[in-house]
């Protein structure tokens, strides 16, 4: 085979030469070329190696079904492996490399697999590599694994960006060939909001690759004219380079637009690819039809190509696939290719027609061999000749390219992605689209309509019907007149008998006809089993060319119709879509929004280190000069709060305002403890359960007036608690007169804790906050001396005298500054969530480290909060189940190391002294642990089997993961101020 550029013709721009390289070899093409057409024009026939046998392979198709011509484009972090040369738009500076070969494309050591092929039949690996046992892991698997895959991904950070976009339309037209363009034009003129998506960089589909004329002009001119009119319509959106890859529920389509994939130096303002989510009232699938390869001996030789692809290369790109071409066909399409090539002066050696008779006309002077088969091909890395068999006689025909045509299959992929199976049509000898309702219909060749004029009219008619359906009026424009068209006919030929060498069904995965026979013999005759056992149809092309032949061959071997074999399942994606495109912009730091507290700026000024807490950034600790580790800072902050005073940002806690005459009743049913009679001006610690009796969240509930409560949640559970309250209010008790809304973002909230908290706060608060005037658990709406209105809560999460002050978020920073200023004489410090955690640990207060979704109030030592005299609350009924009240449950305890200098860490398990580690012996686990600067040693909270009875007992703290085992004493979980003297000061 010798590919070359014809002296004229085609839709490439011969005035614009583009330089590119293939395996380092500098080559030239024209604007408008694909990589494949340019390679063919340069006579680069060998493009890659197949997966299993490393056989030399060339270009088979001119579109997205390509199994063989896969290359790696680009380099370094911009490497795209497994890229189909047939759909890659050529650009200046493109670099392409062949794949799956070593050391070179021409000489590939892996090709030895081909000689071993009798031993490497379908599924061979299931039957071997088992002896000796350990060899699989150490020897065989690494060996198999090295052979995996085709291209190489670099896994370096991708410098490109991606995005998504929503689109809504009355009509989505998938495919801008004759049927699609006509449909879009009809609907667009009628005023529908139309989106046309086509995977090609030039709209027109088969109009760009035919010798037929429309309205007296070349078909491509008609295409350009139609596109121009569509472009001018404001209600029509044209998306070229856009593949509709999936059809989802509610007529939502996924499409990927390659915005800058065809540009050597992409603009940083634009994304590389964009995924469209298209919501379409109606859609037309104008996706064309796929020509079928023929399964004959040696059909994978570089130079063997789809006949239609040869036509496309000649008509659209002005490239001939060879100098001496043979056509092997079972239908009229092969003749069409012969005529197209002959008209451009390409020599045709012969047309080999598998059929005995046909009305198809060969070009003048071309030999037609009827009732004949190609049974073998000659040449190694390029085709040199073919062996034709007819009535038992063989003949060698010298040729350098072979075009094959086995008929057509409508492309119905999208219509079959939601469970419906394609339907076998005996008339069309093909699977056609199932009836999936009015939302999506096939049109044109995808609908089994194969002549140009009928495609045009099918498009216009279906679009007009949709327009009418949606209440638009479509005008009936005159149908375009097509000249020179011919009918398409073929007879199905799944397997060409008499193969002298391997006859491939799935080129890329090297599945040949005999593999399917073996699968059938071994009981894998079901189409899904055959696919999975042989890997037919599982390559990067998903069997676009091969599946139909595999089905036909299985049907033939089983003696049934292809209808009885059926197809494998069609699933997204129609063609592969990049991770980046599907992920869009939400990646890296932007994978989830970052929420900032209104005191973020204050914390920054004070030198905070931040940590992630759900979506929030929270200040963790505030290092000062001279402090070497985070522990130094945290210890200082803790000691300072215990001795003096500290300020901590607690704005991230969830805050919910609850109103209404039934607000008290509502909250009383939500919390397991009583809330109904909470006095105005008071706060209370509250515990919410799930309906299964397990702790859901804890927080505070305050009452500002009879009908206005204020609920706080933990930071992590703010969303779930709000949703839970909405669930209860709306679905369980819709008759309660209660309304609520989140005010989390409205308030900057700060905890001022420590013995000197009152002294500091009194300086900025208007009004008396003495213990008498404002005792523990008081709440009040107040004004600051600066005039800012605020809310003050006397609550504590540290065991110290403490207040929480809430001010409108915008004032947070100024007020915090003011408090720091007022606190300076009292040695105030900023403290973060790490110190907060140590303070609460010392005091035996709990967080979601303890409430891990399996803990009951009683487990946590809060059993007395359960108000069983209430008629009802969420979780009441199921909390009395045997397993939730059993005496041997794990209960909250404190732990202190027997050896004071020993460390304990959360996640350790507990063992009785003298017992061996085993699941049966497991006594519990450490939920929180840390160094208590007040006590001078490590402390921990743990859940221990029947723990409350075991104070004083020694247990082993088992932390095998860190190779640590220490002995600790079980104790009360409150380590400091058990009498709450400081709290109530």
């Amino acid at each position: 085979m010798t590919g070359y550029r014809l002296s004229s013709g085609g839709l490439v721009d011969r005035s614009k030469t583009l330089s590119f390289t293939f395996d380092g070899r500098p080559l030239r093409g024209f604007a408008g070329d694909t990589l494949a057409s340019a390679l063919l024009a340069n006579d680069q026939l060998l493009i890659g190696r197949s997966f299993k046998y490393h056989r030399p392979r060339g270009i088979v198709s001119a579109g997205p079904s390509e199994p063989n011509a896969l290359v790696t484009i680009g380099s370094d972090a911009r490497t795209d492996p497994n890229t189909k040369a047939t759909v890659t738009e050529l650009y200046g500076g493109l670099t392409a490399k062949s794949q799956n070969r070593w050391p070179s494309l021409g000489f590939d050591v892996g090709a030895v697999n081909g000689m071993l092929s009798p031993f490497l039949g379908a599924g061979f690996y299931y039957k071997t590599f088992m002896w000796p046992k350990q060899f699989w892991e150490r020897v065989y698997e690494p060996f198999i694994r090295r052979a995996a895959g085709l291209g190489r991904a670099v896994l370096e950070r991708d410098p490109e960006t991606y995005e998504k976009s929503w689109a809504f339309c009355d009509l989505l037209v998938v495919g801008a060939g004759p049927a699609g363009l006509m449909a879009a034009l009809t609907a667009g003129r009628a005023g529908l909001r139309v989106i046309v998506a086509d995977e090609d960089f030039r709209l027109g589909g088969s109009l760009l690759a035919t010798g037929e004329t429309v309205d007296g002009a070349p078909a491509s001119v008609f295409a350009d004219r139609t596109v121009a009119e569509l472009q001018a319509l404001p209600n029509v959106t044209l998306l070229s380079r856009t593949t509709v890859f999936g059809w989802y529920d509610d007529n939502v389509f996924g499409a990927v637009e390659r915005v800058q994939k065809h540009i050597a130096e992409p603009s940083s303002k634009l994304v590389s690819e964009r995924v469209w989510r298209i919501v379409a009232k109606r859609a037309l699938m104008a996706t064309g039809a796929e020509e079928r390869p023929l399964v004959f001996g040696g059909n994978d030789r570089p130079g063997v190509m789809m006949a239609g692809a040869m036509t496309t290369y000649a008509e659209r790109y002005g490239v001939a696939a060879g100098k001496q071409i043979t056509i092997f066909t079972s239908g009229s399409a092969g003749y069409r290719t012969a005529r197209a090539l002959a008209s451009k002066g390409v020599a045709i050696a012969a047309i080999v027609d598998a059929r005995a008779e046909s009305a198809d006309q060969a070009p003048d002077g071309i030999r037609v061999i009827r009732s004949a088969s190609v049974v073998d091909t000659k040449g190694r890395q390029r085709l040199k000749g073919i062996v034709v068999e007819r009535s038992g006689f063989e003949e060698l025909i010298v040729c350098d390219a072979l075009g094959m045509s086995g008929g057509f299959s409508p492309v119905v992929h999208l219509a079959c992605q939601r469970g419906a199976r394609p339907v076998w049509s005996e008339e069309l000898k093909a699977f056609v689209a199932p009836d999936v309702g009015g939302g999506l219909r096939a049109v044109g060749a995808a609908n089994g309509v194969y002549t140009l004029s009928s495609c045009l009219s099918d498009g216009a008619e279906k679009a007009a019907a949709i327009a009418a359906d949606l209440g638009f009026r479509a005008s009936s424009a005159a149908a375009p007149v097509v000249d020179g068209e011919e009918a398409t006919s073929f007879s199905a030929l799944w397997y060409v008998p008499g193969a002298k060498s391997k006859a491939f069904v799935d080129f890329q995965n090297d599945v040949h006809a005999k593999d399917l026979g073996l699968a059938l013999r071994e009981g894998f005759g079901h189409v899904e089993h055959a696919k999975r056992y042989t890997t037919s149809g599982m390559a990067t092309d998903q069997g676009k060319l091969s599946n139909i032949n595999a089905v036909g061959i299985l049907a033939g071997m089983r003696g049934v119709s292809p209808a009885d074999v059926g197809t494998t399942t069609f699933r997204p994606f129609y063609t592969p879509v990049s991770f980046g495109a599907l992920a869009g912009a939400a990646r890296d730091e932007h994978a989830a929004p970052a929420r900032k507290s209104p005191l973020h700026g204050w914390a920054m000024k004070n030198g905070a280190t931040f940590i992630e807490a759900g979506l929030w950034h929270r200040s963790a600790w505030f290092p000062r000069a001279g402090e070497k580790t985070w522990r130094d800072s945290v210890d200082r902050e803790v000691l300072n709060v215990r001795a003096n005073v500290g300020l901590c940002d607690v704005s991230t806690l969830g805050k919910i305002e609850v109103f209404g005459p039934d607000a008290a009743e509502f909250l009383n049913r939500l919390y397991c403890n009583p809330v109904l009679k909470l006095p105005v001006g008071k706060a209370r610690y509250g515990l919410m359960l799930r309906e299964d009796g397990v702790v859901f969240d804890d927080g505070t509930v305050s009452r500002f007036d009879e009908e206005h409560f204020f609920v706080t949640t933990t930071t992590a559970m703010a969303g779930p608690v709000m949703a839970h309250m909405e669930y209860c209010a709306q679905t369980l008790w819709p008759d309660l007169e209660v309304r609520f809304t989140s005010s989390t973002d409205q308030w900057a909230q700060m905890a001022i804790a420590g013995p000197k908290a009152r002294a500091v706060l009194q300086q900025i608060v208007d009004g008396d906050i003495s213990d008498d005037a404002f005792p523990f658990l008081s709440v009040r709406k107040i004004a600051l001396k600066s005039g800012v209105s605020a809310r003050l809560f006397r609550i504590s999460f540290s065991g110290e005298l403490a207040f929480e002050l809430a001010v409108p978020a915008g004032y947070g920073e100024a007020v915090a500054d003011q408090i720091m200023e007022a606190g300076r004489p009292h040695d105030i410090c900023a403290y973060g969530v790490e110190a907060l955690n140590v303070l609460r640990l010392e005091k035996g207060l709990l967080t979601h480290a303890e409430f891990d979704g399996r803990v009951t109030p009683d487990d946590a030592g809060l059993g007395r909060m359960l108000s069983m005299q209430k008629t009802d609350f969420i979780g009441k009924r199921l909390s009395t189940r045997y397993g939730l009240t059993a005496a041997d449950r794990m209960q909250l305890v404190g732990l202190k190391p027997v050896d004071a200098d020993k460390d304990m860490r959360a996640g350790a398990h507990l063992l009785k002294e003298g017992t061996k580690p085993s699941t049966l012996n497991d006594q519990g686990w450490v939920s929180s642990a840390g160094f208590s600067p007040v006590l001078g040693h490590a402390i921990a909270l743990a859940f221990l089997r029947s723990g409350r009875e075991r104070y004083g007992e020694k247990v082993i703290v088992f932390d095998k993961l860190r190779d640590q085992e220490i002995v600790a004493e079980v104790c009360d979980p409150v380590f400091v101020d058990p009498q709450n003297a400081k709290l109530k000061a």
Partner: protein
Amino acid sequence: MASLITCPHCGLRPKEEFAIRGDASRGRPEPMDSDEAWHDYVYVRANPRGRTLEHWHHVAGCRRFLVVERDTATHEVYSVVDAAEFARRAAQ
């Protein structure tokens, strides 16, 4: 359905605006109902292949719980109503 829900308050909305809570076919038992009734309510699901009632929470929209009547095999949606209205209707 899996792609879009027509919220009775907000109109046609994408799936990602919703959180799905689960079965909406049964009401919460009365406090004095049997252990079995409570167990069934919390733990047992009819889980039909076909028509089902499900609570969808329009978290990023009106924050209403909706009762979505839909088909678990075809994903067709038959109706979407506000859960409070559904509950009141059921109570009648």
